[in-house]
């Protein structure tokens, strides 16, 4: 179990992470989502004791990361697959970690096999592709048979086959009672893998819940010939309206209510359907759009 409580990080006058709280339960995979620079990595680094938080605390299995006597045996961490010595072979990289974790060297070979790197075991990491380094990083994270995994952008640089492989591996890990948190800046990349989403933007948590909750059809999506006129008509009818980025509107009402209100005002509809998680997509678009980043 991973618990993050009111974590904040300030660098001088800029706040990278502000009052972030969430928990990751055993047996689940949590996607930690947000655009680049939203504070994902900073949060994960505070979680793993690399960056001291300005305030708040993070615990793994009830303990602060730095207080774990041999952290690799409790939690597997991969923060940057590219941060491996190019001059060592894949096998030597794992053997070094195995010695530190106090696991036999046969375990390193098993993990190479598990991530499909046995044929490349004796090649130097400098010759690995980013996808292969991700696999090596995952092998390193699994080396100590940890109960939890913390992976920063593990799908980055992986081909679709690799992503599907990783999905199977993580879902198996979670189904056996493991705790997983993985970050990504692409909703589509992790949507099929995770059970829960924690969405961060501008250093703050903007959404936190199960995938079903967050993607559930919340209200109705409607598009009209005259978006402004339709917006006014629906608002006048007492409905709560949220304009989306492409001229569509998300309305907290049934399709019938929206249709009646539009008909009463003589507005022509082009599209009317359940919003189907459009809110989350919209949230993402807002977070990742240049104007939001500049604000």
């Amino acid at each position: 179990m991973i618990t993050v409580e009111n974590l904040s990080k300030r660098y001088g006058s800029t706040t990278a992470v502000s009052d972030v709280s969430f928990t990751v339960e055993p047996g689940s995979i949590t996607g930690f989502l947000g655009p680049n620079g939203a504070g994902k990595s900073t949060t994960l680094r505070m979680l793993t004791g690399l960056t001291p938080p300005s305030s708040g605390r993070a615990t793994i299995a009830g303990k602060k990361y730095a207080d774990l006597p041999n952290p690799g045996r409790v939690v597997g961490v991969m923060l940057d697959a590219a941060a491996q010595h190019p001059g060592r072979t894949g096998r030597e990289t794992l053997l070094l970690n195995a010695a530190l974790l106090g696991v036999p060297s046969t375990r390193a070979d098993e993990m190479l096999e598990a991530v499909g790197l046995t044929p490349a075991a004796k090649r130097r990491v400098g010759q690995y592709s980013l996808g292969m380094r991700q696999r090596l990083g995952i092998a390193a994270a699994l080396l100590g048979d940890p109960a939890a995994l913390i992976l920063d952008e593990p799908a980055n640089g992986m081909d679709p086959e690799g992503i599907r492989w990783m999905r199977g591996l993580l879902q198996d890990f979670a189904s056996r009672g493991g705790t997983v948190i993985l970050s990504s800046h692409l909703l589509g990349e992790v949507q099929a893998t995770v059970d829960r989403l924690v969405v961060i933007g501008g250093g703050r948590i903007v959404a936190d819940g199960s995938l079903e909750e967050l993607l559930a059809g919340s209200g109705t999506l409607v598009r009209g010939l005259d978006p402004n006129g339709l917006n006014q008509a629906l608002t006048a009818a007492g409905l709560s309206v949220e304009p989306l980025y492409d001229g569509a509107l998300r309305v907290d009402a049934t399709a019938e209510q929206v249709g009646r209100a539009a008909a009463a005002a003589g507005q022509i509809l082009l599209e009317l359907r359940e919003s189907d998680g459009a809110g989350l997509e919209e949230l993402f678009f807002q977070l990742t759009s240049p104007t939001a980043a500049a604000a």
Partner: protein
Amino acid sequence: MAVTEITSPVAAAVPGKHRAAVATSLPPARGQSFLKLVTIELRKSVNTRSGRFLILGILALALAALTWQLTHLNDGKQTFDSYLAAASTGVMLLLPVIGVMAMTSEWTQRTALTTFTLSPRRIRVQLAKFVSAILLSVVVLSVTVVLALAGTALGGSLSGDGASYAGFGGALAGAYLTTALNVVMGAAFGAVIAQTAVAILVFFVAPTAWTLAGPALFKSNADWLDVFGAFGRIAERDLHGMVPETLTAIGIWIVLPTIVGLWASSRREVK
């Protein structure tokens, strides 16, 4: 939905047993002893090509110097002193680079990220690096000493004048002491400045600059900060009554950078 019922069992893969129900074959988790950290640091410094080349290069330099000495035999008895001096000049100059790189390479190669995630108590890791660098340089120096011994014996029989091993112990003690101090100083500079090239440059330039500029600026008071003078006196194992000067120079150039380096690297942001 009859169709779904027929096809669905395929997707339901056999779920693995809960991890609590599976007895792990791995030994129980223990903390990381300091000895283990030192062993791992030693392994890290020899399991990359750059690390091996550095060590082999240093030894090649010693061999080259001995070969020159053997092909330019001077008259009289061949003394171990002179052979050790020839073999170890380059070695002693380059060994501190092992110290510097022990501290910097993790930061330049970005492996510090893994190292400090697996061992969050950074000061222990850094101290293990100091110990590992000292051990490694002692090994390299010992190989050099063996080469020098062989060179002396060979020179003695080649020249026909015989070999002399007078002052053997003293020469060795001096060489090991200065090497250890030099390597610690290199490691300390590497800990303060995490960039390999910059750290090596500062390590070589700063004390030399002081040795050259100090006397002009501060007359004999410059001795207080002349680390090479201090090394020389320690190598001779005769401080010439300059105990406070020697201690001050060591304190400023070795102890202070070590403390600052440990502090800095324990707080440095791991990128």
